């Protein structure tokens, strides 16, 4: 007991634990852990969920040791710009170290979510073998694995009796979908031994936008016949064909299935027969949505979708032609989430479809929707909260689409609940941004990408400083911002001064001088992630604000004006930062380069684990 904190012992640990269980936010639990030793001990033993925003910020063994009772872990690896090929493929973010530590220290782990990590098939096999009660595996933007690894996961799924590990073996039926239950449990009891293999009840397998090598044709057939616990299956990112009949069997025997997202390989007829078996689905991702017109197929599709009484979320619809889209009008009214961002449907059909979706809260769509389409959305979808408009032709080879700032302005005016925007377009004005800012002060996420770098206000030819300044000044709760277009240091002054809740900022081709970076780093008190490319920001701002970097998760700078000397100074000054210089061009070691050597890519992150041991040849920890 610590003197002066005797009150902590006034209640037994279990009471405090119960109190802490109401604290959902990690930040709150972290705060609690700092109050006194007793609370630190109680909190750490009772923490069930861990989020590691940077896999290199802490050593896996340390995390596992500190929180021994974790049931759910989420870990992120590569920096965000890895999505755009700016990070070398061998940079790191491997999951083995974490999976091995977790297999060792968290045998009761139930949920694992990895984002932007390199996950090997061996990792997947280890996951399959190590966790008794594994329920959720989510891999987002990962790579390094193949369908053979998925087969290993599938093969280890069981829905059957679980034995307690202490002496007495009691058969507990978790979920069995057949008759003869008592006989079954007896059989398991008889066959039980101390050495029973770990059994799992996989509920959720979520593969989102991963690069998966396809080398195991029928991995789905590795799910045993007894496996019936599936609630959510997302295989949209898989390239290859999936055996439809095996999938049909799987779906038929999983009565709790709510989410099913298929990949584009499946032909429409097979999709229809598959979906017919699961009218209880809440979230559907279709495969390709085009085929030659067949009236029977059309009516089958129509009746299948009409059978979805609970459908809330629709995605997929790859390569949709106008032919089959009308067949699914019946679900529009109930949809709250619609993801058409891979659907190359033209504006008239899109308009007809989307304007029926009166209850839409989230809409992801291609710029093929055009301004007219967005105006219609603004009129029909009054509950819209999140809009993402993706470019159908980012490299501008095809004739231009008529999607301009007008579409976004219309949405901002018509959709009062809009708080999150991602918008790719080719032109913008300060006036439009001002209007948006005034219309929607409740924006929390504003990501605007004007495709051509350095594009000014196309009417006044001014930089877009005024427009973005209006956004940060008006939207007091803005947490995420991405800038584009022609911008000077002025916009950074506004951001530094006004964006008090900003947590993530992405900057490209902007600013005039170091002052820009200085404004950001000396302001933005809640900034966690800063990523910058192709801006004239250099050493001075970085060194002047060195201590700020320890309050942030990470900083990425590429094609800026930072020199190696500044990195060295920074690393010296801030021992709890890893300053990684990434250079794929040269072969000579870092030590031999002079101080004025320009750094091509720089990734700085706070860590308690010290420099990492798995840096590839192109990365140097200064």
């Amino acid at each position, binding site marked *: 007991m610590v003197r002066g904190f005797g009150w902590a012992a006034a209640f037994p640990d279990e009471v405090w634990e119960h109190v802490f269980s109401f604290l959902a936010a990690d930040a709150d639990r972290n705060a609690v852990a700092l109050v006194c030793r007793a609370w630190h001990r109680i909190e750490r033993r009772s923490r069930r969920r861990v989020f590691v925003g940077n896999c290199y910020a802490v050593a896996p063994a340390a995390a596992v040791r500190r929180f021994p009772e974790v049931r759910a872990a989420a870990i992120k690896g590569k920096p965000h*710009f890895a*999505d*755009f*090929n*700016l990070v070398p493929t061998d940079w790191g973010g491997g999951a083995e170290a974490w999976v091995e530590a977790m297999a060792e220290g968290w045998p009761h782990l139930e949920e694992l979510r990895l984002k932007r990590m390199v996950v090997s098939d061996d990792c997947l096999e280890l996951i399959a073998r190590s966790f008794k009660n594994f329920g959720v595996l989510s891999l987002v*933007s990962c790579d390094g694995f193949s*369908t053979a690894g998925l087969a290993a996961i599938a093969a280890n799924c069981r829905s059957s009796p679980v034995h307690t590990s202490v002496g007495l073996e009691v058969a507990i039926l978790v979920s069995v979908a057949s008759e003869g239950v008592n006989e079954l449990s007896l059989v398991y009891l008889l066959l039980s031994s101390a050495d029973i293999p770990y059994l799992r009840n996989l509920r959720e397998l979520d593969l989102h*936008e*991963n*690069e998966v*090598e*396809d*080398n*195991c*044709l029928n991995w789905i057939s590795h799910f045993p016949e007894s496996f019936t616990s599936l609630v959510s299956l997302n295989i949209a*990112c898989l*390239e*290859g*064909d999936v055996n439809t009949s095996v999938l049909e069997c799987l779906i038929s025997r999983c009565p709790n299935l709510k989410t099913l997202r298929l990949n*584009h*390989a*499946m*032909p429409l007829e097979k999709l229809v027969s598959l979906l017919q078996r699961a009218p209880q689905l809440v979230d559907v991702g279709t495969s*390709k949505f085009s085929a030659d017109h067949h009236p029977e197929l059309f009516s089958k599709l129509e009746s299948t979708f009409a059978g979805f009484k609970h459908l809330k979320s629709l995605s997929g619809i*790859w*390569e949709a032609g106008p032919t089959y889209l009308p067949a699914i009008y019946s679900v529009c009214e109930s949809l709250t989430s619609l993801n058409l*961002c*891979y659907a*190359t449907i033209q504006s008239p059909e899109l308009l007809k479809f989307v304007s029926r979706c009166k209850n839409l809260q989230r809409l992801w769509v291609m710029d093929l929707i055009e301004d007219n389409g967005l105006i219609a959305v603004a009129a029909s979808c009054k509950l819209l909260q999140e809009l993402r408009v*993706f*470019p*159908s032709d*980012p*490299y*501008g*080879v*095809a*004739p*231009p689409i008529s999607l*301009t700032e007008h579409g976004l302005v219309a949405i901002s005016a018509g959709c009062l609940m809009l708080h999150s925007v991602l918008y*790719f377009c*080719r*032109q913008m004005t300060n006036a439009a941004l001002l209007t948006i800012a005034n219309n929607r002060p409740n924006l929390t996420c504003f990501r605007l*990408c004007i*495709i*051509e*770098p*350095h*594009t*000014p206000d*196309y009417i006044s030819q001014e930089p877009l400083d005024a427009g973005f300044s209006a956004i940060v000044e008006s939207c007091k709760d803005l947490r995420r911002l*991405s800038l584009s277009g*022609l911008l000077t240091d002025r916009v950074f002054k506004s951001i530094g001064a006004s964006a008090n809740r900003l947590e993530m900022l*992405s900057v*490209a*081709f902007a600013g005039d001088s170091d002052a820009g970076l200085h404004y950001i780093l000396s302001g933005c008190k809640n900034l966690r992630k800063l990523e910058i*490319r*192709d801006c004239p920001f250099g050493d001075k701002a970085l060194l002047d604000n060195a201590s700020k970097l320890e309050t942030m998760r990470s900083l990425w700078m590429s094609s800026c004006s930072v020199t190696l000397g500044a990195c060295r100074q920074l690393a010296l000054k801030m021992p709890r930062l890893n300053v990684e210089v990434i250079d794929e061009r040269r072969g000579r070691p870092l030590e031999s380069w002079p101080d004025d050597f320009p750094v091509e890519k720089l990734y700085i992150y706070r860590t308690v684990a010290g420099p990492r041991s798995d840096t590839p040849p192109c990365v140097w920890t200064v």
Partner: protein
Amino acid sequence: MSTTETGNSSTTESAVSGLDYEETQLTLAASGASRSELERKRGFSEGVDLSLETKDFLSGSSDEAPISGAGEPSAAKAQVVGWPPVRSFRRNVLKSCTYVKVAVDGTPYLRKVDLEAHAGYQQLLTALEEMFSCFTARNYPNERLVDPVNGTEYVPTYEDKDGDWMLIGDVPWKVRSSSNFTGNIKGFGSHVEAINKEELEGAISTIHGKHHSTENNLVECCDGCLSLHANGFVDEKLRSCRFSSKNTHRLHHCKVNWDPQHLQTMQS
């Protein structure tokens, strides 16, 4: 005659920056009979406007006055790495299929090549020559492809959407992907099969994982569609190929238009 376009090559060069798609529409028909002879006689280096290649595609930089909304010169602009910030996953999935089949007269099998992977005609032709190097020999002095057996010269041609045989090189490289050039086949000689855009899939796909070893250089796709790869070619290209491919269902169409004679050669 397809040769009329060659006469315009100097105007097409200047037309790259003020791109006029109508001008580069290749729509004239030529009489079938005279085609192959004509192409045989013309030297390749005359056909390709090599000065187009020196219009360095990196020269389109952000120094140019930003064009808003028009998007026309961006066809000739550089592609800055990682910009616009479109996820590589999305980019690969939506990538318009730019694989074309290539046949060389008298060779037992065809190849597929990704137009996107090459920066210009010269690079493409070098790649094609490498692919078919076992059958043809480069005649270095005048840089023409010559068949070692009978000494006939090869020229690269393709069939455009109107079914006309065109000599490679007239259309500026960057324009080709937006206009009628896609969906057509490039070929050496006149023996090329017409495959429409629907059938241009990422050919070399490991969708069914049947990688045959590189010793016999065959990769079998679904339903017996066969495609070829050479050592090293698959591993590098396969990734881009896989991501630009649509689905195996479409590969069925591939098979339909394959020359049965070729198919038999491969199966044997």
